[in-house]
């Protein structure tokens, strides 16, 4: 079960990221995860929010260009070797990772969440099913 990530185009100039966060704050949109990929001139901010369509509309109305991408969220134990074990499963299932970012579960929580963008999301979901992975849905994230 994939979850929706919003990618937002931002010029790589002071104040541009703030413009986006101001709009999100104004509309009470909570970012659960965030990562930014940059080049010299522009960046792509990747966000996980509770309601992706709503956030995309809000951003559009406020002059931002964005798109929605399907990503996989996997929870793993927050301990040495946690990611290594997970990546073995990916390698065996021949799933290619395009990018990933992670966030830890919080103080006292020994679980971390990995967000993956893979080459073919649907095929990857099929191949990873039944391999004992804790793949999160958007409902799971909303409750976290």
């Amino acid at each position: 079960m994939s979850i929706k990530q919003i990618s937002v185009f931002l010029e790589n100039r002071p104040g541009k990221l703030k413009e986006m966060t101001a709009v999100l704050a104004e509309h009470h949109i909570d970012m659960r995860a965030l990562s930014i990929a940059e080049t010299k001139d522009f960046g792509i901010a990747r966000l996980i929010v509770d309601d992706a369509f709503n956030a995309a509309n809000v951003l559009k109305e406020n002059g931002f260009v964005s798109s929605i991408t399907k990503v996989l969220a996997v929870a793993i134990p927050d301990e040495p070797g946690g990611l290594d074990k997970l990546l073995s499963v990916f390698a065996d299932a021949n799933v290619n990772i395009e990018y990933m970012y992670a966030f830890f579960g919080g103080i006292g929580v020994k679980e971390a969440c990995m967000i993956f963008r893979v080459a073919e999301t649907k095929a990857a979901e099929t191949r990873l099913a039944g391999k004992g992975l804790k793949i999160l849905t958007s409902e799971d994230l909303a409750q976290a």
Partner: protein
Amino acid sequence: MERYYQESIECASREDIRALQSERLVKQIRHVWDNVPYYRKKMEEKGVTPDDIQSVDDLKKLPFLSKADLRNAYPYGLLAVPLSDCVRIQSTSGTTGKRVVAFYTQHDIDLWEECCARAITAAGGTNEDVCQVSYGYGLFTGGPGLNGGSHKVGCLTIPTSSGNTERQIMFIMDLSATILCCTPSYAAYLAESMKEMGYRPEDIPLKAGIFGAEAWSEEMRQDIQKTLGIKAYDIYGLTELSGPGVSFECSAQQGMHVNEDHFIAEVIDPDTGEVLPDGTLGELVFTAIDKEAFPMIRYRTRDICSLTHEKCSCGRTHVRMTKPKGRTDDMLIIRGVNVFPSQIETVLLNHGYAANYQIIVDRVNNTDTLDVQVEMTPEMFTDNVGEITERQKKLVDGLKSMLGIKAKVSLVAPKSITRSEGKAVRVIDRRKI
């Protein structure tokens, strides 16, 4: 089925056109010699008198007029009739130097509006149409010209003038406007706005657009036609020659017919002044043979195009001019190479971007730099950094191929480039010359 506003004139034989032009030219030169000392002096300096002008073949004997002459003669130096015979002035935006003030008698207004009526009719307009004129009204010739033309055709004329986009769209939809007249950059903006509001081409009642007052590319035409669901026609003119309507596009959309009963067109080599043959690019020169108050003789427009007398499928026999490539003063010289904004626009549109761009020219370490800022669009955006930079690189290559020089391409946020209601400001030249 082709419609003409004045069929007998628009489809006259070449012999009849020539005879009419010769007759009018002879009278006009006499009129100018007698009433415009400024031009008479130029003729005398060249050793030409009205007796030397017997037909259109003698046109090339006459001296040119240029924008510099208009500035020198400002305001009344080129007026050919008493001020009491004049009923109007119109004045240009003066993008290069001093304002041009053009004078009109009622006869001049009528012939100008007739020319615009021909353009509207060529675009399919009849008295059943609703024509929204979104060119600026006032000193600028766009509004008054198309307004007059629309009245002559008998369309229901909506004089919205430029700006207030919400209101423009309201009128188009509520009153079912079928013809839209405005600058091409404003048409593109209206199209973008209507698309964002959720209007699909089939929802929009417009069937034709008549766009001019600035250079625009074939690619931009295709874009506007697709988004608004219309056929977009080009129209051309200068304040010095009346305003829009000096020439106009017909259903063939292969160049614009010059209203040869009122204007004689030539194309010259801008350096030598030599008249060039059909099909050769050069500077467009016009002689107004019917205007009374402010008649231009061999006026150099600074626009670059070519002429053709080849038969047109629409049936009109008047000479056609190609879409001007740009003005000699639109042209930039960057690292010794001639660059027109319209060339850059063509590349952008070919690569899937919209024509929301600005060109920043600067000079760094004694070298000219060119930065093309183009807005990111929803269509061009993807979650993949590599893909965006790859497309950006393709754009750089495309520009290099078109212009011959390497430009920087900067992707900027949507709506960060100011939209124009009139002529778009495409170039910011920071070089201190």
